């Protein structure tokens, strides 16, 4: 009989050991396997109920997250959309596609109430990728009537803030202001849809004439649009806008020229073509057609955010017809962990412009000075933006993520803001000179 407890103890230890080993093995497997493979190729993806349960369990912890008291209350909108039309909007959304088709851009009538005023609006979902519209909380485009604009806004976007990496897009806009760069006005708001609990959104004024004019820019200009999807059946994703002028569109057309034409894009192509910087007049042409300091700052802004996201489809600019040159618009800079410093800048124009050693050096000098003088201010602003939204984000019951995920994301982004500046500080102080040719 004395042996029995020993055997039981040994079995218990073995079972425990096996359990721990199994958990570690599972963890190892989970960490080393792509999540998309898990979701698409294994039985995990077919266990929606189980996944739902996991998500539910995760969300069950939501009440434990409060967040700091925001320094100021966020503006709040009550958006009321016609129920029948809202149902039509839902019905029109693609079930399996990743991208939003034109057919699915159905408008629903409604009202938007704010500060005691009510505005007649029409609203539709916005955002190319499914994360904007497949789930309960959606990104919206709101259009106001011409005769009753909202704060002078004709159209605004209410974007799910996680798509703009929470506070990162507003931080880029804050930096853009300091750099003297143009960006669409944006702010965080909360929105109740048909009486729902308040949802946190990033409000961004839409690309149109009114948005330009309110920011002391000419309104009747060619305001170019990239980033369409599915124009060619060979590219179901974003259009290859650097391949042909005919992929480009306009948010707004200039009224002075005789034709609604695209020669400015053609000119842009000439400057962006591989090897264009070898043209003896390249620098002059850039100085003629851009304020090159703005290009330097635009690129610097991207480098401050990990320099990944200003590819062709995120290029935005308009042709300032009063100055006969392009003006870039800071858009969707996003944020990534620090990457290789000398990778190509991200789009053809930047690649050519920053193949000019002195302009690359100018960017580095600018960044070095900026980080030395402004890093603390940026971190402070990042902290302020976070504190502005954190509680509202936790209290948003319709968001897709759990509060645990939100906090993790916010922590990660804060760390990235700091890490990117540390990385640049280190890189720029290390060499003291710029390597003129970017690595392929």
């Amino acid at each position, binding site marked *: 009989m004395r042996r029995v407890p020993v055997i039981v103890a040994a079995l218990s230890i073995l*079972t425990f050991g096996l359990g721990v080993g199994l958990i570690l093995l599972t963890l190892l497997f989970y960490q080393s396997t792509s999540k998309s493979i898990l979701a698409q190729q294994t*039985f995990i993806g077919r266990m929606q109920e189980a996944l739902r349960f996991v998500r539910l369990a995760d969300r069950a912890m939501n009440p434990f997250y409060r967040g700091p008291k925001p320094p100021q209350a966020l503006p709040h909108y009550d958006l009321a959309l016609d129920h029948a039309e809202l149902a039509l909007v839902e019905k029109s959304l693609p079930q399996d596609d990743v991208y939003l088709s034109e057919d699915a851009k159905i408008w629903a009538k409604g009202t938007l109430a704010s500060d005691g005023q009510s505005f007649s609006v029409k609203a539709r979902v916005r955002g190319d990728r499914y994360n904007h519209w497949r789930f309960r909380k959606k990104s919206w485009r709101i259009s106001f009537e011409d005769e009753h604009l909202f704060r002078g806004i004709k159209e605004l976007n209410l974007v799910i803030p996680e798509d703009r990496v929470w506070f990162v897009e507003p931080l880029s806009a804050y930096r853009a202001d300091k750099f003297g760069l143009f960006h669409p006005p944006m702010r965080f708001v909360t929105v109740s849809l048909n009486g729902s609990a308040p949802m946190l959104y990033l409000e961004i004024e839409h690309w149109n004439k009114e948005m330009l004019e309110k920011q002391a820019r000419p309104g009747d200009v060619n305001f170019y649009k990239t980033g369409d999807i599915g124009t060619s059946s060979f590219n179901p994703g974003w259009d290859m806008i650097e391949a042909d002028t005919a992929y480009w569109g306009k948010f707004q057309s200039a009224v002075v020229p*005789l*034709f609604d034409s695209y020669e400015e894009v053609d000119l842009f192509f000439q400057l962006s073509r591989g090897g264009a910087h070898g043209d003896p007049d390249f620098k002059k042409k850039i100085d003629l057609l851009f304020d090159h300091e703005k290009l330097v700052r635009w690129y610097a802004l991207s480098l401050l955010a990990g320099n990944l996201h200003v590819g062709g489809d995120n290029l935005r600019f308009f042709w300032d017809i009063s100055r006969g040159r392009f003006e870039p618009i800071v858009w969707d800079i996003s944020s990534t962990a620090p990457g290789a410093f000398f990778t190509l800048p991200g789009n053809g124009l930047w690649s050519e412009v920053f193949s000019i050693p002195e302009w690359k050096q100018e960017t580095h000098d600018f960044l070095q000075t900026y980080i030395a003088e402004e890093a603390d201010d940026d971190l402070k602003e990042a902290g302020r933006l976070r504190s502005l939204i954190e509680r509202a984000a936790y209290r948003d019951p319709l968001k897709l993520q759990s509060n645990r995920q939100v906090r993790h994301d916010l922590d990660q982004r804060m760390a990235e803001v700091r890490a990117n500046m540390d990385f640049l500080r280190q890189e720029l102080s290390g060499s003291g000179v710029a390597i003129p040719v970017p690595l392929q």
Partner: protein
Amino acid sequence: MRALKITLGVIVAALAAEMLASILLAVLVYQSTPKSTLARDTFIGRVPGLLAGVRVLDRSLNFMYRGPRAPEALPSYQLTIDPADLRKIEESLPTELPSPWYGNVFLTEDAKEWVKGTFRADGEEYNVDVRVRGDIFNHWAYRKKSWRIKFDGDRLFHGIREMNLIIPEDRGWIAEPLAAFRAKRMGFLQPPMQFVTASLNGGDPMVYTQIEQFGKEMLEKQSRPGDVNIYGAGGGTSYFQQWDDVFSDTAYWQKYGTAVVPPHDAMEEMEAIRVLSREGAHLEPGYRDRIRSIFDVTMLTNWYALALLSGSSHVRDHNIRFFYDVSRGRLEPIPWDIGLYWPRTFLSLPGNPFLNEIFRVPEWKLQAFRTLWKHVNDEAAVEEDLAEAKRLRSEVERAAYRDSAKLQSNRQVSAELDERMKQVQANVDFAKEELVRSEILVNQRLSSTADAARGLLYTIDATTRGVSPALFAEFSAPAGWKADMEQGKVQLLRDDGDFVWNDGDQAIPLVLRAVPDKAGRPVFQTKQETLSLVWAGDAIFDEWEEVVQAPHTRHRFYLIRRSGGASFSKEDLPLNLEFTNAVTGGKAQVIGDVLMDGRTFERLGEAVADRASFLRRYPLFRSEGDRGVFLQGNVTLSETVIVPMGLRLRVAPGTTVRFGRDVTLLSYAPVTLLGTESAPIRFEPATGDPWGVFLVLNAKEPSDVAWAEFRGGREAFINDTYVTGMVAFHGSPVKIRNATFRDSHGDDALNIKYIPADLAHLRFENAGADALDIDMAATGVLEDSSFFVAPGDTDSNGDGVDLSWSPITVRRLTIEGSRDKCISVGESSKPVIEDVTLRGCYIGIAAKDGSVPTVTRATFIGNDIAVAAYIKKPIFPQPHITVRRSTFEGNKVLQSGSLITIEP
């Protein structure tokens, strides 16, 4: 005891849970890891018997598969080989890679061991030589092997000298016979093939695909000359590659038969193929003629159509067979080992350098696509294909299941047969979808003034992405061009590929469509397909020749004027163009169509010219200092002058510059216009018509203007810059003193934008619209200036001073007679206005659109409305104006608007 039971229960439950979790984890690993990785890179592949055990388990269910009764019995052969000889064959077979450069265990020449045997069929016995055949190990490394059987002497079997018995799975079971069926229908020579069963040394019948070996007898039985060169390519010749690269060297080719007429056993026919297969050969002069001289091109296009119909990329170097028909002096391809695959994009390359070059010729690719399109849309032909596939399956299926020596299990055979059947249909469906795709991006370009003057009116670029080529079918011409086009005064040309209009470009014959377009414009249709064809070039491929990106292939057309006066008016553009799918005849998909106006930047180059070029072009100017240009005396400009960036323009005191109608002086360089009171600088019209503008654009260094007089200019649009001021400084800082602006005809007499205001002692007289427009001046002063519009000047209708986004100081102004506002403050401007006299305007001061002017010591005399505040653009908030210590005399209305504060 009870505690013990509970403890044991918990342990058992935990173990059960762990076991379940382990199984789930194992399934996860199995599902998420490629099977080849599991087999090759993990211990799974090294556990003895593990995979074999799985296979045995799989084969144990073979008895459950029967298959349908075959419509007719398969021919049955008995092959007898001495066991010792069989051992000899087995022993000679390779077991390792012949070289590290090879991808497979390969049957090299030294392993092709012939042995004697007997072959029995239909009650007759034949002496034969036998060896294994097939390059790759699947043919001979397992129990069931592929065989080459050679009949001795004069006793042939059904006239066959040499035959192959090939394991049918190597030929995709029904795939090869189906391809042969289709090939024969397209007129190709095919080696006779059929399914048979063969017993080896009395063993169970094994199912085989019997294919007669390439040789003289095979040709002669099919009405072809026999004593000819029959060429084939294979592998195993070089240590450095598995498959012979016959396109790099002719010596890699082999012959299955040799011509007897030529004096030498030579390979010149394959040398011609090698030359025609070089990258870019299709662009060489005479390429098409050389191909036509040795091939019937229809055979080549049919060959490609046949391969596409099978989703095939298998016509590689080693699967090429030709014979040279000495009676016709032509090579004839023999489709071989086409295979059957799931469809893949037709943007893929055909498969070997020779065919790749052939089908880079757009007309031939089009011909192949049309053949294919015709076939897949011919219901009877498709039905016939499917029926043949079914017949072939039913012929072989039961025999395959009963074949006990085959490598696969019956489950695998059944699955593969199912897959092949689906592939037949899938390729037909895919071809229908793929060939409908014909995407085009269109760039239309209105020519620059210079090009238009030499006759180049318009350029049309059609960028094609594929799959099918398109035809530029028709276009609507401007209404007035009908006669000119019919008489050939205006022509549509096809660019010859250099993207420059020159003599090499060919005119496309056009005919007038009977029905004009909806707007009543004449529609011209192109009538020569080769000239109106636009096609997609090569896609971008990865290292495995998989298509990574569809191509963008640009083609160009010109509309040119040979004589007459054809030109475009605004309503003519963009042109209405029609592209059709050259394969299907339907509409091509124009996925983007943009217009470019080549006149917009036609003078941009002058902005970056050097000084020497500038001075050469404009000898009126002289050089001064390191980078200056200089103008003096009485000068008349009859064409617009652009002063390049990087220079500095100086105009000497006493200079008078006269401008022709609409002539502009645009300077990207800072300017110095310093006259004196006694010798002012004058800018004035040279004729009775208004000139353009004097514009300084984006010159960062400051400009200086004093004692200058500007008269009679208006506005301009140049280098895509719109200028509303007769005199304008856009993004170019300037100090202006003692200057006069008279009789302007544009929106503004003087317009400064994006620079601080530094303006004093100015006089504005009879401005056609606004006199002074200050936009986006972040700081600065406007002072000691006067503005006057003569009474009764009915052409004048503007403001004295118009401010936008400008928080500047305005003081000591006298403004009189403006038909609109003496001072207009708009767009969030917050100016301080002091000591101004505002007389006889419609409105004295108007605050608009979020502006907040503060006015002190103003005198309002005889205005219709002294002070107004209102919103003009609803995007701005309410304005608010404060007027202090001001005097009001004889104004009809003191104030209009709600947010006006008038303080004593």
